[in-house]
């Protein structure tokens, strides 16, 4: 029992550090992607976004920066909440209202992220082509299998976290005063 508890604490501490690194990486990566968009695209970032380099201006990149910034912000909040969840586990607060709330907030942010990623792709196509001549501007609308899978998984995670949160609430209610 004690050994398992130590394993939970060790793994949670590791995940907390990973989350911290991701939290630092998100804004830096976001900034680097939009300052070196062509290179970032060759590395696989926003590889589905098509643009014409002849008409690509700073205003396009700025618009792209702000549009995708929304997603980056949601991802940052999600990782922040996940980090809080692991901090609680690290301190031994497993199955407490605080840790359940953190997990629930993470799953909510994840649902938001998956839902917003669809219109953001459309907005990005507009942002990257609004300086193109009339007739060459693009409007991308796509919903692929992986979008559906991601949304489904996020809802599953949300439901699980909700069940955990409610279970913790019931347990604490039972344990104390009615």
């Amino acid at each position: 029992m004690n050994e398992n508890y130590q394993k939970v604490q060790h793994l949670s501490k590791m995940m907390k550090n990973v989350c911290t690194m991701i939290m630092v990486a998100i804004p830096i990566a976001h900034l680097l992607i939009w300052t070196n968009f062509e290179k970032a695209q060759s590395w696989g970032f926003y590889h589905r976004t098509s643009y014409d380099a002849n008409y690509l201006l700073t205003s396009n990149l700025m618009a792209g920066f702000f549009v995708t910034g929304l997603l980056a912000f949601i991802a940052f909040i999600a990782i922040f909440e996940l980090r809080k969840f692991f901090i609680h586990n690290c301190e031994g607060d497993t199955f407490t209202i605080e840790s359940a709330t953190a997990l629930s907030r993470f799953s909510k942010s994840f649902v938001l992220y998956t839902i917003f990623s669809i219109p953001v792709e459309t907005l990005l196509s507009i942002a990257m082509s609004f300086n193109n001549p009339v007739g060459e501007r693009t409007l991308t609308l796509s919903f692929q299998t992986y979008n559906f899978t991601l949304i489904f998984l996020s809802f599953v995670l949300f439901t699980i976290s909700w069940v955990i949160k409610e279970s913790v609430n019931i347990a604490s209610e039972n344990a104390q005063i009615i």
Partner: protein
Amino acid sequence: MSIIVNLDVMLARRKVKSKDLAQAVGITVQNISLLKSGKVKGIRFATLEAICKYLDCEPGDILEYVKEDK
């Protein structure tokens, strides 16, 4: 414990099911069960008020003090 919970008696008198009381009061059926068996640390005034309101009774009908011999 010298405080006896007579909730099961009142439920039987009023012919009310635990499930219905739980729904009316806004607590779980498990908690009603714990309350009936007296396995709780305490009861909130708000819960007591809601129970009394639904069962149309006084707090004294639900809670009873019995002197314990030393």
